[in-house]
């Protein structure tokens, strides 16, 4: 590690390439965002290579792929870590965990930015079984990740815990299979998803689990699917876990209010979401207990007709 590497807001051309990089990951494709990561710490790079393998791995990017660079300076530096996206600085910090958090955040942001013209993107988790999907739209901290993690135990396969991509032409849900980002509050109810983090990189990822769904089942990564069920979860400590049916217009409003880019798609996007709702049974779910929530979702999923309204 070197303390002489400056980290200006925009790195001059060629300067980043001159850094003594120890590791460059493969190219990954997350919806329309193609990227790789290079690091000065080889073990961190190897960790990322494994972590991002829930995305599609591509030999070469379709267009010019984007590169994240994680700079690490001497422990004596006041701002030890720097994170760049191509030549633009995203973050500098003395805390490794913080910089890595910014990396995951920026990948999410780029996915939304690059994929938004092609998909209507919902702030929703999603899972599928036998080619049919359940969408879990909700605000932050509502329990989307915990609920979709619980569904993996019931034989569902993972599509996303962050951004559900709806193709407005086909109404198919396209997977955004980032690792599950599990907060400490859910660690006790999802012990089987505890990730294996090599000791050498443990200091980079302390505040959150980044879990590969294949820990639960090697076949846990889902395929594109059409929605059969919409369930909007809300975790409430101590509450009775229960489902409340939503009228179609309420479900549509829930999807629309949890969309990143509906206004960009306009009436075509609104119609697409309405068509998704028409094909689904729709509920609001109060979650007091995860196992009860998973059982309720599984039950309505199994009872929902293959094509609602058919």
């Amino acid at each position, binding site marked *: 590690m070197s303390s002489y590497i400056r980290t200006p807001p925009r790195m001059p051309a060629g300067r980043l390439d001159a850094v003594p990089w120890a590791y460059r990951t493969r190219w990954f494709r997350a919806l329309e965002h193609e990227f790789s990561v290079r690091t000065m710490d080889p073990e961190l790079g190897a960790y990322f290579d494994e972590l991002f393998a829930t995305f599609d791995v591509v030999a070469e990017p379709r267009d010019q792929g984007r590169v994240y660079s994680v700079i690490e300076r001497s422990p004596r530096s006041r701002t030890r870590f720097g994170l760049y996206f191509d030549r633009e600085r995203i973050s500098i910090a003395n805390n490794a965990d913080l910089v890595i958090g910014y990396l995951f*955040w920026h990948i*999410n*942001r780029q996915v*939304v930015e690059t994929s938004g013209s092609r998909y209507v993107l*919902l*702030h929703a988790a999603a899972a599928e079984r036998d080619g049919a999907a359940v969408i879990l739209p909700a605000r*932050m901290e509502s329990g989307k990740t915990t609920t979709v993690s619980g569904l993996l135990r019931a034989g569902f396969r993972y599509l996303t815990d*962050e*951004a559900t991509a709806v193709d407005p032409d086909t109404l198919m849900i396209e997977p955004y299979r980032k690792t599950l980002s599990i907060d400490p509050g859910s660690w006790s109810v999802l012990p089987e998803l505890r990730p294996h983090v090599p000791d050498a990189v443990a200091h980079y990822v302390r505040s959150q689990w980044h879990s590969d769904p294949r820990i639960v089942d090697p076949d846990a990564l889902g395929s594109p699917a059409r929605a059969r069920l919409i369930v909007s979860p809300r975790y409430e400590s101590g509450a009775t876990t229960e489902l409340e049916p939503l*009228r*179609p*217009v309420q479900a*549509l*409003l829930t999807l*629309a*209010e*949890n*969309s*990143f880019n*509906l*206004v960009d798609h*306009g*009436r075509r996007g*609104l*119609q697409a979401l*309405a068509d998704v*709702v*028409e094909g689904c049974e729709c509920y609001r779910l109060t979650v007091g207990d995860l196992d009860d929530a998973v059982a309720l979702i599984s039950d309505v999923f199994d009872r929902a007709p293959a094509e609602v309204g058919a």
Partner: protein
Amino acid sequence: MKPGRPDNGHGPARRAGIDPDEIDGAFVPELRSSIASVELHGEAVLLDEVTGSLHVLNAMATLVHTCFDGAGTIDELVVDLAEAFGEDVDTVREDVVALARDLGRQGLLDGVIGENELPAEPVGDEDGT
């Protein structure tokens, strides 16, 4: 990351038109061209493609708003609606005017200044004053 509406950061829009409370039977209601509408089982969701705002209409409003196409005054519309609903014309007029004023306040009608909008700047006189 948070989903949400676009914010152009330029403050309230200015719009030429009347105040919603001025809407009466002589008004010709028409949804703005930026309003997308989709109906599900008798209820509608409206999306303002400019602001990203969302609006839900109940069954009655859903039915009536489809008549807000700029083709006739409220007085003309209520005659047909009263016949369709089997209701008294005056009662229907009262309801339709109330609906139009409500949609106007929400910035959904052409020629009406929404409650989050400002009147257009007055144009100066020809002598420059």
